[in-house]
């Protein structure tokens, strides 16, 4: 049995190493000051995909990322570790996407790929931090989802078995293919880049990265494995009204730096009444709801 696996991977600013110039005066991220990295939990996701590929030889791992052309680096990083290839979904029309528009675009790309068994993403991106994209894709494609996955145990007769890390412990669940799995950071770390793959794929590129370099184009033309797909909104038949800013009901109005202090801290007992009082209070002051 061989599987077609799509790994959703996002290029994110490295918010784990935030220096003092990480934010601009207007409160937005200063992307120039933060190195662009492979979203950490997406590396955990990739590792699960590569393990499946080892378990079921002949399986194919495709990295799918939405972002500017330089996000091709994410696909290359995937290939250095054992992915077979990848696609960069890139179009000005996708700019300003919230989670709804992001998952719309990605699900359109997944449909275009068509023949897939498992879509594996990270639980959450370290910049947007919503953990919504994976589940939304599953909804849009109308397929099952397993979140907080820690280990994909195997696939048998079209049924996948997955260990999930949940608050109170570990749970093992089964679901039918095709499906979306989002992987938790507690899963195995991704394997390192492989020296041979690194040398083999270091010149892999999307067409727009080499648009101005004929020598590189000729080099890639002779080596089809160096082609990384570059898809636009049109190439995935996306409805522009559902893409980017236009397709994003979320509008970021203002961003503030909030420093949490303990002065408002209050202890409540773990009883139903006390919890209910608290929740009512929070709804009343619009903290939630």
């Amino acid at each position, binding site marked *: 049995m061989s599987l077609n696996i799509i790994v959703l991977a996002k290029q994110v600013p490295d918010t784990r190493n935030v220096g003092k110039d990480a934010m601009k005066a207007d409160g937005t991220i200063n992307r120039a000051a933060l190195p662009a990295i492979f979203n950490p939990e997406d590396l955990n996701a990739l590792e699960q995909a590569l393990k499946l590929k080892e378990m079921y030889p002949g399986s194919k791992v495709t990295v799918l990322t939405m972002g500017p052309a330089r996000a091709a680096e994410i696909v290359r990083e995937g290939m250095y570790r054992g992915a077979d290839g990848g696609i960069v979904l890139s179009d000005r029309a996708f700019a300003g996407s919230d989670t709804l528009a992001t998952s719309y675009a990605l699900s359109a790309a997944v449909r275009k790929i068509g023949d897939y068994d498992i879509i594996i993403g990270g639980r959450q991106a370290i910049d947007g931090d919503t953990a919504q994209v994976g589940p939304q894709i599953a909804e849009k494609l109308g397929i099952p989802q397993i979140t907080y996955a820690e280990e994909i145990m195997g696939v048998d007769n079209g049924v996948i078995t997955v260990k999930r890390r949940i608050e109170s412990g570990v749970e093992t669940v089964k679901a039918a293919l095709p499906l979306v799995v989002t992987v938790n950071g507690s899963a195995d770390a991704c*394997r*390192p880049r*492989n020296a041979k*793959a*690194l*040398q083999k794929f*270091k010149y892999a590129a999307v067409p727009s990265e080499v648009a101005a370099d004929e020598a590189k184009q000729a080099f890639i033309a002779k080596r089809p494995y160096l082609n990384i797909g570059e898809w636009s909104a049109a190439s995935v038949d996306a409805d522009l009204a559902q893409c980017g800013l236009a397709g994003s009901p979320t509008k970021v109005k203002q961003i503030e730096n909030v420093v949490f202090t303990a002065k408002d801290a209050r202890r409540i007992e773990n009883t139903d009444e006390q919890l209910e009082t608290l929740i009512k209070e929070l709804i009343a002051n619009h903290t939630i709801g």
Partner: protein
Amino acid sequence: MANFYTDNASLKLHLNHPMMRKIVELKERNFADADKYDYAPQNFEDAMDSYDKVLEVVGELAGDVFAENAADVDIQGPHVENGHVVYADGTKKNLDATRKAGLSGMAMPRRLGGLNFPITPYIMAADIVSRADAGFENLWGLQDCAETIYEFASPEQIEKYIPRVCAGETMSMDLTEPDAGSDLQSVMLKATQKEDGQWVLNGVKRFITNGDSDIHLVLARSEEGTKDGRGLSMFIYDKRNGGVTVRRIENKMGIKGSPTCELVYKDAPVELVGSRRLGLIKYVMALMNGARLGIAAQSVGLSEAAYREALDYAKDRRQFGKAIIDFPAVAEILSLMKAKLDASRALLYACSRYVDMYKVYDDIAKERPLTLDEKKEAKHFSRLADAFTPLAKGMTSEFCNQNTYDCIQIHGGSGFMKDYRCERLYRDARITSIYEGTTQLQVVAAIRHVTTGTYLNTIREWEGEEVAPAYEDVKNTLVYMTQQYAASVESVTGVKDPTYIDFMARRMVEMAGHIIMGYLLLQDTQRDASVERSLRVYVKYGQAEVAKHADFIANFRPDQIKDYLFE
């Protein structure tokens, strides 16, 4: 989140040495593999970029994996189960990572599954790995035993074993026995050939690093009745065939993750490598030369770790209202540590380039006859490699011991505690000047090049090179040190007493070492001004050391040696 390659600018300085162009072009046979293998470089720049990228992976593994596991590995260590070694958990993870990263058989040709890297970037990887965990460097670095198979074994053996090493199987070199340490001519492990031609081994080896490896190179006595090195041959033992068990693992002071095994051979089937009787005098000599370079790299990596730990601590720790680094006494220790580190590294890579040059010619000579010029060049570099290997192993390992000692000193009482990394570095460093030939044995190998003038000729050649005016003063000091060295050598050899030469050998080898490292730092400074500080500090130190030795020799009457010798 640490990368031990990208955070260390001095590595790139050595990787980008001007001699690399020639080394790479020869090693790649003018890039003949470019269209044959999808991971082969197209040209020099491409090759250098690949080394850089792969070293970045090594740096990442070193910083994020090996260094992180090192403390646990040191505590847990390996153990024996049913005659076989079980590594510490961290060691298993480290090995798994290096296998997945494809960092085995780095210097082996592509047709055998290797990366075809020159020795220099391979040694750089060893330097990086050692900074993270010196004990793990042994397990990973034993891959260079494959070099000996590649050079001397039959085509069938090469095809059989090297691809396995490239795929990540580990190796060991089984030389030492209870009564054969520095003196390997006394090896007694018995090799007998059965009627069907099969060789088998019987006996015991001890102190064998990674003695439960997949593929062993074994030195054994094949010629019954002989007593010296000419009765020894080299064999390959394949663990898949069985016959060797681990009796015990030594309980060591340092490099605790690296299993040091006592091995029992019971009719262990083996294959002869090359010709009988050449085991020690040819193959082991080559094997040890490669391994010595590896230990020099291990020493440099440890020196690097020690310097960094000490520097961080000295900036952090405050006494008498200021950081201790602001006390001149502490600053001097740190500056000297850094100078010794940079000098060690300069010597290591000078040596590795010489090894690269002669090895690549040796390899080309298997494909076609070398031209006269090539032969001359090969001979020149072979001689330099021969002279620089014991010097590098000896000097860098002693410096690494000194640096880890000083690292503890900078930490004060905390350094004596198990809580700080410097304590482990100090224990790990201690072995570097013992195995692969003690420092005394390195001196035995190097003294030939003192008396025959290899060092002096090289130094004189460098003396002829121009330096920027700002460094004329340093060069003048080096010229003066050279005069003192030459005069000392003349006075010692003039006595014409081998015992006297043996007695003074260490001093003369060290003098040559200080001058050579001074010049190498001077050359590095021409390419990168940031080396200047280490250059100046090192030459000041070397000058005093050379003067001390020159003084000792000048004021020594040969008959005074009797005060030192025992009946």
